[in-house]
């Protein structure tokens, strides 16, 4: 079996946000919706201080709390481990949003979808085309660019990352680049103690 997963290399990441905007382009996410982004945090006190850049993305957990919380079956898990949302089944109750310990889901209201255009009162041709993919009143999230995977391509955030800080691949394959790097660098899952078994690992 394939289990898609990602390793995020904190040593390589420079917090540039190329991933954030590659995702924006690829998925056409509306204003205020980020399927992935990088946060930065100062650590320490002057002069012994640094800044840590941490990329965040849906962890596509094996044992996903959001999946369990979804009352309609809109959230589902594919055979290759992706946690996806079927917009047609989502009624926007936001139980998943509450259940996700990582806060990687976003509720997209009908109003936000309609009004939050990038330029006030104007929908660009890009938005006209891309926003068709969204339904207002649903919860939206990262799909690991499922549509790209279907074409044999890696997720948009992965291919654009200037620092090559995102390694994507099959976690079930012990010889995959991502698995080997996780092993070599002692990669760890975010909030592993929750038992959600994320498909995203961090490398330090």
């Amino acid at each position: 079996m394939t289990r898609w997963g990602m390793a995020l290399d904190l040593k390589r990441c420079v917090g540039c946000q190329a991933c954030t905007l590659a995702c924006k382009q690829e998925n056409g996410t509306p204003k205020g919706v980020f399927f992935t982004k990088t946060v930065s945090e100062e650590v320490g006190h002057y002069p012994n201080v640094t800044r840590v850049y941490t990329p965040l993305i849906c962890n596509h957990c094996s044992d996903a709390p959001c999946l369990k919380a979804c009352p309609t079956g809109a959230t589902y898990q594919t055979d290759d481990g992706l946690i996806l949302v079927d917009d047609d089944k989502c009624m926007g109750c936001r139980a998943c949003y509450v259940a996700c310990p990582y806060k990687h889901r976003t509720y997209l209201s009908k109003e936000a979808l309609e009004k939050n255009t990038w330029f006030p009162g104007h929908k660009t041709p890009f938005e006209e085309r891309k926003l068709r993919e969204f339904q207002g009143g649903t919860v939206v999230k990262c799909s690991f660019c499922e549509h790209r995977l279907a074409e044999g391509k890696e997720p948009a955030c992965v291919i654009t990352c200037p620092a090559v800080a995102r390694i994507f691949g099959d976690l079930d394959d012990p010889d995959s680049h991502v698995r080997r790097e996780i092993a070599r660098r002692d990669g760890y899952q975010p909030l592993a103690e929750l038992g959600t078994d994320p498909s995203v690992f961090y490398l330090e």
Partner: protein
Amino acid sequence: MTTKYAAKETYTVKSTCKMCLHSCGTVVKVEDGVITKIEGDPSNPANYGKLCPKGNAGIMRHYDPQRVTTPLKRTNPKKGEGQDPGWVEISWDEALDTVAAEFKKVIEDDPRKFQPAINDFQRLYNWAWPASFGCGNFFSTVGTYCGGGYHPVNGIYHSTFAAVNDYKYCNYWIQVGGGDGFSSHLHVSGSVKRMADARVDRGMHVVAVEPRLSVAAAKADEWIPIRPASDRFFVLGLIHTLMHELNQVDEEFLTNRTNGPYLIGPDGWILRDADGQALMWDTVTDRAVAWNAAGAVPALEGHFKVGDVEARTGYTVMKEQYAEYTPEKMSDLTGIPAETIRRIAKEFVEAAKIGSTIKIEGKTYRYRPAAINYYRGGQAHSFSVQDNMAYKVLNILIGAIDAVGGHLGVLLDLRQSWEEAADGMLDPKPHQLGPGVPFSWPPNTTHLRDFFPIGVDPGQLNHMTFQDPEKWGVKDIMPEAMLIYHANPLWNMPGTTEFFDKLMNSIGFIAAIDVVLNESSMYADIVLPDLTYLESYNLLMIEPPSTYGIQLRQPAVPPTGKCRDATEILYEISERMGMLKNMNDIMNFVQGFVNAPEYMLEADKKHPVTEIYDRFARMTQGEDKGLEWFKEHGHNVVERMPSISYDPHPYRYPLYNEFIMKTGADLKKNFEATGCPIDWDFSQYVPFPDGRIPPVHKEAAEYDMYAITFKDTTVNFSENLSIPWISDIVYRDPIHMGLLLNPKTAEKKGLKDGDLIELRSREDAIRGPVKIVEGVHPETVAVSNAVGRWVEGHAIVKPGGGHFNRLLPSDLDYTCLVTGGLESVAKVKIKKLSAAS
């Protein structure tokens, strides 16, 4: 292409990015006529398929509803803040006829009354357009701020436009005030990869020296906070330690590949024999011999008597002067502990592996895997030439200049030439962007370019001369017409709003060529809409740090509205001014067609850009690689060949820079011969960097804080904040929205997060909210490049509290009198305006 447009289908086009001045390779996807994705071109080693956040945001520039898509004419004669220009659409004919007639009137009277603000970096050749009719003015500071000193000095030491350390082989990288490999400069996306590979895969050690915890500092193995505008003193401390404490320099390299052993007389000039050849001291025959004397074994150090003349080697002159730059003294100036300076010097020179070689592709090269790298923050200071020279000297001392693993020249584009000058020296080429302006008093340029024989355009001095035209000799050439082309001079030049408002209102006619309007083009009488990079052609490669070749920008979609290519707009204006021949002459010069007459543009034709690029491609890449080849393949970019990267020439480096001395001496003669009354500090023309202290450190005590500015990748070069995807990120980041203060400083001044404060220098003031961060030097307030826009015409841009540059005095004290570079640090006092709400 035409057929592609017509088809309702999905297609991709190989092209190049223009979201900053560099040019990463892209693949643009179009679906049913809509651009839906811009990705990096994985086949292009300039960026390996990667794009920075700005490159990922190009779609929103293209589809900006506030783009200018038709020629516009102003109907409100009143200009300035709060005035709606009352734009009305006009035809191209009316627009071009009006612009040409107005420009012609002024140019025929006196071309020096024309003011160009042309900053279209990817169409650099258009910077030369005003020269086609004899105008040498430059109403902008773009380039000068970062590269005023940087580029000429790279031209002198490397015969290249830029320089960067060797990502592939460097093991110990000191970075001073620069974003190379982390956040900005030289093809940032590819460079971030190269740097990450070096750091993580090869374990390269990085030391970042900056007043603020930049991305580089955050990712470095060590951040050394430094007092702003004191970078050179840190470097002088390192040099002192190498020369006087560790006694570790690359003697072999200094002796044979620099003019370090050349003998210097008491007057500071190199001693020469009757044939004019530089002398050095031969230890075999114990006498002075010509630099190229066969069998000589020159002394690198020592005092010698040549006839009656007391002479020292260039190296000895420097070494003796550098005795005083002890780590303790440099510590006082930089705030960096002396022991840190000593430790870094030791680590640096040990990592350099002096004397070692490496074999690459069968050839043996000098191998020095340690180097110091720098950019704007490290050298944009009052004595910028010296700051730049200090880094070069340090790299030369360990033999790392142009060595494998060391500090390498970066070509502006394909043009490469390393030539031999007298005495076996590398021929200095300070004018990488084009020829300088000959000296004249009164000056022929309002920014006094006439006084900078080896400098870049010091645009900031317009502000100084326009305030006292009589004194500066420019009263007869005050501006009467202006072209603003991909530029925002009012935003980035020093000067108060009142000053600019008065100036712009005094100019009879202003035209603009751009994609969107900004603070400056709001003063235009006519606006001419340019194409975006997604609907235009260009053939280029600018400042590639690790690659070689060229690549084609080509349209992914047809032109929007009535937009036209800026080069073709200039052709139209030239023709209507009766100056078509002038335009073709200058094009032939800047494209290099003058050297290959079969490609020369005919004088009486308006040449489409595609034709110009086709000729350029065939001339430089061979007849089989014309435009059609590039349309299909996109690029012929390859990893840079070792023969260009490493030891690209056999000549000597100017450790003792007599060329700069001589330039100053010649300039002084020109001042004297013409009776030029301007008080000029000729002492800045030095043969090697010394310890003189920038005037910013001597401001009145009430200005107790250093103000610096910074950027990161999202706000790297050119227009950013009007792109909503960019501002959506930047406006969420507190680092970019406030004036950064260290907590101890904030406490001392009774300031809290969010308090609105004013920063006032002796020149002007800006304001903004306090943001308290640990990652800033306590004597420093750091101001993001993202605050300070005040454009009224763009819905996405939040008005800020004024551009940082307003704080910089645009006078001779704050200008490097050798290169024209402008001091980038201001001394300010902080006033609390209101408490955080």
